[in-house]
Each structure stands twice: as structure tokens, then as C-alpha cells.
């Protein structure tokens, strides 16, 4: 039995834990505003809000209901477009969209309303450019987005700064009720949610499927959870903890990309937060986990490629206890990894970079956002007096696994920072990889692109020592 709050109502239903929430919603004739556009989290037409209470704080995040397993609803608040609607008239978000005629065919509009509402629920001082970013996971084929941009701008200008100090507070929800964004019943319903931090994680069973964000699993194999026991890692808050202590950063494997973006870790590494913005969309970052991306073992996984340069250590636990494996040794072949049945990654540990180290992440895909890279690459290079002390470069999409470019990284040590060094690193990286032709580009393109991205790392990290013209000729 699945018990949760759907809009205003407490609900207990018999429903398969691994089936998509979207299907559950669309069975109800009164809840047809949440739409199926693609069924794999790539369009945002099915966006809903998922609320969760921890102590006195209640956090709402936009998620794609088409790839949200129903089991994740238990004890949480599912808020759909119908729940946001006022009995008469429009909410602030809706009225700005209508005023700008920012809805044409209207199929995607409810998802856009939910995404903008979610943005306002997660921020104390709305800014237009952030509101636009919050729509990165919502595809509209009609408007060209210009009118949506204007609507977002007017919306943000119309919402006063929140008197609250935490966007997860009841006070902030009340502020949004007063601003015409949320229905007046919402704060009371939210308060009635069970406390997530009091949940007791169920003990692991040997035949269960461990599901982190499930964003890839639900898209690739929608029936994967049919008829088998499932363990949702989001039920164990300890798995999502992120801490920074004495230069050691520890990231729970079930921390979402959004959690990471909001954490001290993102602050500790210059450029990390911007890099994480290039991962998928807001809705997916709200679900996709750091550990999930590593275990997914995609050769192009953004998280893997980023953390490879930090010499990250994985804590893996299983029936026989806990062991540590360097991320660089974790992936062993295409979709193969050093993980036994019943084992799972619990956390990542890394040493935060020293002050003379620069981090860079580069990703080129067909579309800049909400796309899988043709090639991605990260670099962490520390230099003293114009000489490389330590370098680490990684690359995705150019080998069967997310690759630490060991040869290139080692070669750089002791070299002077110069255009020639950048070019040498670029050539070395191109020699070190073995890309294949696929839908993301030809092998030749990917090899060339990696070479260019390595040059881009140097230009970005050492603009004064690198001559762009030299790189190009």
C-alpha cells in the first residue's frame, strides 16, 4: 500500500512501486494536466513537485513524473498542476504566462507552470536568469521561448523578496501563498507530512533492486522494477550527506546532483557548480545521484568524468563489509565495474584542491543543455611559477569507460605552462583514446573534439600564458 499526499488529499493506493507516477496520475480523469511528451525525462511536460519534510523544513523539487517510480511517493507530497490551481482565476505564474501569450498549443504549459513554481519555492529572491534556467528541462516546440523569458522576467519582478531565511521553511511557503504563487491550504498540508529523517531504512535483502535516482533506468528499461523488490536509496538520508572537513570532502552516493550544487563542496571547488549545470536538466538533477551516475558506468557520464580528476575514492559496502576503491580503477570495461552483487557505493571521498589548482570542465553536445555529450573532459591542474606541479585530465565518450588520461596527466608534470605544452597535452590525449562512431558523432570527430577540449582547459585556466592563435594553427 502506497500512502502519500496528492495535492490536498491523503491517499492510500495499491500501485506497483516501480511504475511511473505519470501513469498513476493519468488514470485519474481529474488529473490530466500532467502530460506525457516523451516518457524519458527529456521534455518536462510531466513535471510535478515532490515535497519532503525533514524536521521543520519542507523541501519541494520539480521532478519528471514519467521517470519517477511510484514507490518514491510514500510519505511525501505530490503536487500537480491541479494542486497549484486556485479555485478561480490564475496563480501569479499562470497569469504572467497568459499575459505574455507564452502558451501556444498548451500541451507543455502545465509542466512549465510547475517548473517556475518550483523555482520560486526554492529561492528567496527570484532572479529572471535563474528562472529561465529552471526551464532548461521543459521543451516547448511552439513559442521559441522568447515570450516565456518575458513571462519569467515579469514574474520575478512581481514577487517580493522572501522574509524567510530558508526556502524550505513554512514561512517561505506562506510568503508564496501571499504572493499568489501557491494555494492557501498548502502550508498546513505540508506540515502534516511525516518526518523523512525519522524514516527507518529497510534492511537490505539479497534479491532486491537498488534504485538511486532511477532516471536512466526508468527511461531505458521502464519495466525493470516490475514484480521485484526495490530498495529506494532516497529513504536513507545518511546516504545523501555531504560534508567538508579539513579539506576532505565526503559525498554520499545518493546525494543528488542538485544536493551537490547546493553544498559546500560546490563552493570549495571553483567552477564545479557551473560544471554541474551542464548535467541534464533541473528536474533530472533533482533526482539523479552522484553514485548512480558512476554505477551507471556510461562512458560519457558527466559525474564520473568530473570526479576522475580529483583522485576520488569510493567506499563500497556489501555483505562482507566495506572496501575502498579508487574511482580511477572502478570502471573496468564497457558497463563493467568493480562491484559485486549486493554491493553498493556508499560515498565518495576526495581531497579538495589546493589553492594553486584550477578545475575546468568542458562538454560539447549537439545541444548545449539537457543533452548527452559527444565528448566531455575535466582537468585539474596545479601550477607553481609557471610549471605544472600536478595535472589530472579525464575524458568521456572516447573509450569504453569514463577515462582518466593517465599518460597525458603524468606527462604534464614538470612542464611549463605554455601554448606548446597545451598542444602537446592535446596531442597526447588524442593518442590515448579510442572513440567509436555512434549517434553522438564520428570517431574522428570525437578524437578531434577531445584535442580541442584539452586546449580549452589550458586556455581557460591559464589565459595569460596561452596564445589562442597559436592553439588554432
Amino acid at each position, binding site marked *: 500500500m502506497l500512502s502519500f499526499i496528492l495535492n490536498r488529499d491523503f491517499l492510500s493506493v495499491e500501485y506497483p512501486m516501480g511504475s511511473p507516477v505519470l501513469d498513476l496520475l493519468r488514470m485519474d480523469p481529474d488529473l490530466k*494536466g500532467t502530460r506525457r511528451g516523451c516518457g524519458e525525462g527529456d521534455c518536462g511536460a510531466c513535471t510535478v513537485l515532490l515535497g519532503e519534510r525533514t524536521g521543520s523544513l519542507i523541501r519541494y523539487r520539480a521532478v519528471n513524473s514519467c521517470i519517477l517510480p511510484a514507490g518514491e511517493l510514500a510519505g511525501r507530497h505530490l503536487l500537480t498542476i491541479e494542486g497549484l490551481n486556485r479555485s478561480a482565476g490564475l496563480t501569479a505564474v499562470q497569469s504572467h504566462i497568459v499575459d505574455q*501569450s507564452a502558451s*501556444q498549443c498548451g500541451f507543455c504549459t502545465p509542466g512549465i507552470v510547475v517548473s517556475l513554481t518550483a523555482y520560486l519555492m526554492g529561492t528567496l529572491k527570484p532572479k529572471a536568469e535563474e528562472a529561465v534556467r529552471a526551464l532548461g528541462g521543459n*521543451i516547448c516546440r511552439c513559442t521559441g521561448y522568447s515570450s516565456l523569458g518575458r513571462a519569467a522576467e515579469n514574474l520575478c519582478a512581481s514577487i517580493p523578496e522572501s522574509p524567510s531565511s530558508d526556502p524550505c521553511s513554512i514561512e517561505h511557503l506562506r510568503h508564496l501563498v501571499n504572493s499568489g504563487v501557491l494555494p492557501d491550504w498548502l502550508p498546513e498540508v505540508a506540515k502534516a507530512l511525516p518526518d523523512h529523517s525519522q524514516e527507518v531504512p529497510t534492511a537490505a535483502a539479497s534479491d532486491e533492486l537498488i534504485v538511486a535516482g532511477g532516471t536512466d533506468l526508468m527511461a531505458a528499461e521502464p519495466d525493470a522494477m516490475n514484480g521485484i523488490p526495490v530498495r529506494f536509496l532516497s529513504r536513507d538520508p545518511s546516504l545523501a550527506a555531504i560534508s567538508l572537513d579539513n579539506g576532505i570532502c565526503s559525498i554520499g552516493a545518493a546525494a543528488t546532483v542538485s544536493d551537490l550544487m547546493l553544498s559546500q563542496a560546490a563552493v570549495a571547488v571553483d567552477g564545479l557548480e557551473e560544471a554541474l549545470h551542464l548535467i541534464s536538466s533541473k528536474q533530472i538533477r533533482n533526482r539523479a545521484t552522484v553514485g548512480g551516475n558512476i554505477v551507471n558506468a556510461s562512458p560519457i557520464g558527466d559525474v564520473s568524468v568530473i570526479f576522475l580528476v580529483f583522485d576520488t575514492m569510493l567506499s563500497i559496502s556489501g555483505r562482507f563489509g566495506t572496501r575502498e576503491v579508487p574511482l580511477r580503477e572502478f570502471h573496468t570495461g564497457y558497463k563493467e565495474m568493480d562491484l559485486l552483487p549486493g554491493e553498493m557505493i556508499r560515498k565518495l571521498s576526495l581531497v579538495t584542491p589546493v589553492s594553486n589548482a584550477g578545475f575546468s570542465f568542458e562538454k560539447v553536445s549537439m545541444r548545449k*543543455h539537457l543533452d548527452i555529450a559527444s565528448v566531455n573532459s575535466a582537468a585539474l591542474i596545479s601550477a607553481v611559477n609557471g610549471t605544472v606541479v600536478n595535472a589530472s585530465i579525464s575524458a568521456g565518450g572516447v573509450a569504453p569507460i569514463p577515462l582518466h588520461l593517465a599518460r597525458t596527466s603524468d606527462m604534464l608534470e614538470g612542464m611549463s605552462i605554455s601554448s606548446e605544452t597545451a598542444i602537446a597535452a592535446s596531442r597526447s590525449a588524442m593518442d590515448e583514446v579510442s572513440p567509436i562512431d555512434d549517434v553522438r558523432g564520428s570517431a574522428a570527430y570525437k578524437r578531434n573534439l577531445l584535442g*580541442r577540449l584539452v586546449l580549452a582547459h589550458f*586556455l581557460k585556466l591559464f589565459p595569460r600564458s596561452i596564445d*589562442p592563435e597559436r592553439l588554432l594553427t
Partner: protein
Amino acid sequence: MSFHDPELHSRGESRFVDDLQIPEGTLHAAVVTSSLSHGILEELSTAKAEAAPGVRAVLTAVDIPGMNQIGTIIMDEPLLASNEVSFIGEPLAVVIADTPALAHQAAELVRPQIRKLQSITDPREAFARGMLIAPPVTFCIGDLDKSWEACDLIVKGRADSGGQEHLYLETQATLAIPMENGSLRLHSGTQGPTYVQRIAARVLGIPMNMVEVDVTRLGGAFGGKEDQATPWAVIAALGAYVTGRPVKLVLDRGEDMRLTGKRHPYSSDYRLGLSSEGRLLVWEVTYYQNGGAASDLSTAILERTLFHTTNAYAIPSVSATGICCRTHLPPNTAFRGFGGPQAMFVLECALRKAADELGMTAEEIQALNLLRTGDIFPYGMEYKGDEVERSWLRLDELHDLKAVRKSNEQFNLSGGIYRRGMAVMPVCFGISFTNTSLNQASALVHVYTDGSIGVSTGAVEMGQGVNAKMAAVAARVFGVDITRVKVETTNTTRTANTSPTAASSAADMNGNAVRIACGNILNRLLQVAGTHFGLGDPNHLELRSESIVRNGAATDLGWEVLVNTAYLERVNLSSHVHYSTPGIHFNRDTNQGVPFAYHVAGAALTEVTLDRLRGTYTVDAVRIVHDCGDSIAPLIDRGQIEGGLLQGIGWMTIEDLKYDTASRALLTDSLATYKVPDIYSTPADVEVEFLECHSENAGVFNSKAVGEPPFMYGIGAYFALLDALGSDDAERRRNEPMTAPMTAERLLGILIREKRKDS
């Protein structure tokens, strides 16, 4: 009560086909399709599927009671293949089951045996093998031989533009409901309710009056539901007819992308002759259109290509040939612009080449050759407007094109890895269906006794705002508040023999029908008011702000009382009006005539920044001056311009259809692999100015059609990127094959090839 679509949309309360409450006992259909691109269907065993749980029927070609034929212009497309299969995704059988999941599971059990035949997917190869959908067509004007002799410069080349997935957010969907006595009601997501009605009747072997098609609205269409909503609607109808139960068919996204046709890819050869000062003298072009496996609308689309072969330019001698090639791909179909964009792309390629040869900027050649009033199109029609030149001049006045080029050159001297580029894209697009007989529409207007108004037309709302425009027309004629007007669903029992909502013309034609119908009722109401005031003739009466105005002064006779009075006096409060666009004709023997009611024009300046290191770019700004006539809904029209623009940019840049080289299966069959523009793709700066209206037009209240023309401003993105690529070296621009889309992969390829050449 508001009938304003955007309010319903924003509350999630507007209803699409998949949102309709289904009747009890509704069954669900799944389609079994060919996995080979060409072959002979030798066996189709359905026994396993029939025995599967929840399956009510498995239908193949032999179960079709009428004709197994869904072609509209040319009868060359079966609903369900029975012998030859000619594309991957061609429907072979239909499974009807209790749930969508059971239907899909059973569909997997149908095992077609197909003997593989050679498949051809390249249009030039198809042409070489004589695989044509129709004989080639040539539009010709002027004395070509003489013109070639007069040229100082002749440039020639090849240009290729890719296909484009419509990616309407609502996939193809129909709910078919059996009514009494063998009749059917189809709730279909179609742009062409009459097409669906006609073909369903043909396939079922019943008269059209037994098929009612009702369309509330579409979740986007862009041409993709003009002809290609039909097969899915007819399959659902067949299922309902055979089982006697309601049948629903909603394609999932992957099916929709694999099974339906796209914008036509074109491969073209051109030759352009100019004088030394850059005047265009002669244009010769051959378009190889990749039609796919069946004709669909390809011949009409190719014809519109020929109509737009010279776009916004005056060229005295023209020979343009269109070849509709049959290939083993899903039948390609209508997509915003309908062949016009493909034509305009080729000419712009030639202009760039000529500009480089002459040492002129593209804008200099463009400006010199813009259409002026009185110029003659290659199809013999005189250009009556002046908006082509005025929009260019206004764009130049607002943004100073020379100064932009100069500032780009300045930037590029010290741009590091970045280079800026620009392009101006003028557009001149003919409005009307080029098949003259389609230029008809109708409206049925009822005024109810409480003063509320119902308007039915043949136009289908698909996001373009036609319902809002129809309501605005009715409110304007009656002088009442727009909230009194409800625009009804598009239904074949209320408006019969409708043309599809296409060719940008639905608001023009249906709007004029609404205007006349409302006018008829208004005249009767004014008669009633005249009698009320004891006047013999109501000439001094008007209806304004919901009241009768007499000699310019308000009276106390309000709208509701007037309507009720008219009813009690047994006055007809309804009007049905048929409208046909006047003055158009076209002779297909000579390819001369006046096929268009008028032309829409405009010009756009596109500015890009190219990252020469990564092979990436941003479209920084697009500044548009566009001719909307006297817009009756400026916010809606602006939305059409902005939306069309970004679709056009997508076509030219990131939207890249990829096929498996061996099987020819579509590889980019999901939103994960086929990328359409997102909110980050939209240029930071999109400026739109409406050109001042000086003319009398055929549109309703002097407004102009707006749906398709702005799409072609997006073509500027390709040429702005080319401009940026050529900023260091015009040679690079000259030698690069003209192939769209300009993907990141293609861009880096060009940049790296160039690097190799240098070293």
C-alpha cells in the same frame, strides 16, 4: 466564463485526445510495422497475437472492408501493407486489446516474414533509377540562352538541406467511438478533419456522412498532422468498426518519430548568372526532393519550392525544375514552410558564392536585387506589394547593417578564439494553397437567446491562436465583449468539406467567413433595432460596446435585450457562410497564373559568435522586421514569429536526423538523440518590429497570414555561421560544401580541415 485557451492551458485544463474521458469498454490499438525498409511481405502470422491475453482482434489488410488506400493527391499508399513493404515503420497489422500494454505486448507476437529487397534512400540515386513519384516539373520564365550570354559571372554548386522531425509535443492520437447504425465519431488530432473523414469512409466502405470527425485542439502540428494524422485515425476507426467498441490509439514518442514522415530533405544543383555589378540575371536550379515511399503531399510541397525558387529577389530569367523522388523512407510530409525553406536555402547558398567571387558583401547583392512593386515572379504573377524592400530598408534603418558588419570585422581582429558573423535573410512568401480549389472555408455562427455566441469554422486550433482570432473577429463585428464568444470544436457535421488548417491561411479564410456570417446576423439585429426605434431603415444604427448606438449616441437598447427581442420576433440568429479566396487561379499546363492572394514579406538580421576552438557557437541576436498587415492579434503574431524563427534555427543547426547506414533505421528516434531547441538555444536578443501596413490585403480586417513565413528567418543562422567561418578566409567559405544542418560536428570538421590546409 473564459474561453481563452492560454488560461485553460496554464491550468492544465485544456483537453487533448489522450486527456478525453474514454467511454466504458474502450479498447486500445497497437500497430505492427515493418522493420525492413524494402521487401515483399511473404507471411504475416497473427495466430499467436490473437491468442494473447486481452486481445480482441488482430487486423491485417484482408480485414479492410473498403479500399486499402489512404493516398490523397496520388493513390499510392495502403493503410496496411499486403504485398510490398517500402519503409521501416510501414503499418502491417493492428492489434486491438483491452489495455495499451496488452496491445503492445501482443503486437510483438505478430511475426511478419519479409523477403528483403534492395532499398534506396538517396534521392539522386532514386532519380538515376527512375524512381519518381511524379514527372519532373519546370517553372520557366525569360530567355535563358540570351541571359547566360549576358552574364559576367556564373557560379554553380550543390546545396543539401536535411529533414526535420516535427516534434509536436502531443503525439498522433485518435479515439474512435462507434455510434448507432454503423456510424463513427472520431476524436482525432488532425489538421485535416475532412481528410480523416474522407479516408476513413473510403477504407471502411461507408459514406462520408457516417463518419463524424471532431477536433478540439492539437498539441502542436506544424504540418505533421495535415496528412499524417490520417493513418492513425483510420486505424482506430477500423478497429472500432470491426469490434463495435470504442478504440483509442495514441502513438508513443518513439513510434511517432519512427513511423511518421518529416520535412523533405533536398539535394539541389544550381547555376546563377550575374552582371559584374551584382545584378541577378539568370537562375537555373534542379531540386531533388526526397519524397519517401509514398506521395503524401510531396508533389504539392515541391510545387511550393518552385513557387519560391527566387524568394524575395527579382530574377528575369529562371528555369527551376523539381523532381519528386521515391525512396524507401517513411513518406515525407508537410512542415511549416512546405518546401519554401528548402528553395530559399539553395538561392542563399548561390548568393554567398557570388558575393565572394565579386568581392561584395552578401547584403550588397541582396539589397540590389530585392523584389520591387511590379516585378514578375517566375510563375507569371506580378508582385503587387512593396513590403520586401520596405522591410529591408527598415531593418537597415533600425540596425545599420554596414555598421554591424564593420563592428564584427573590428571584433574579429582581436577576437581570440571567437569570430562574429552575420546574415540578413529576406523572405517573400505566397499566401494561399497553391491547389486553388483548397482556398475555401466556412463558418457557422449562432447567437443564443442569452446573448452568448458560438462560432464554428473549418480551422483547427493547434497553438497558432486561430480560435482567439476567430473570437476577436466575431466580437469586433458584433461590438460585444470577447468573453461572450465561444469558438467550438472543429467538427465535420457543423463545417463540412473543410480544407486542412495549413498554408498559413486558416485565419484569413475562416476569419472572413466568420466576419461575413456575423455581419449577416448583425444586419438582422439592426433591422430589429430599427423597428424598435420606429425607423424604416437602420442605417444610422450601430452596435458598439454591447449597445445600439444611434447617430453616434448610445441608446439603452443593449445586446442581450436586442437578441432576445429578435428571437421573439422569429428572426434567424444563425448564419452559415462559405468563403472562397477571390481572384486566384493557376494553369498547370503553363505553370503561370495568380496562385496567391498576396505575399508576406520581411527581413531578419542574424548575429552569431563562433568558437573556433570548440566548434560551437551562440546565436546572439535575431532582429526582425515583419509584415503582418494590420495585425488583429499582435501578441499572437509575435509568438508565431518568435516560434517560427527558433524552429528554423533548429532546422539549420542542431536538428540532425541520423539513419543506420545498413538498415536505414532512424537512429535519432527519441528526444535523447534528436535535439530540438531548448530555452538556452533561443537567441539572447530577439527583436520583432511589425512593418507599417500600407496595403489592402485579402486577410481578415487587413491582417496577414503569419504561420509559416517567419520559419525562414532561421535560415539566416546557417549563413551567419558561414560568415563567421569565412571571416579569416573567404576561400574557406567558398569551398565548403553547402550542407545543412550546420552541426557542431560539421563546424569542427570545417575548422580542422582548414587548419590542416594551412600547415
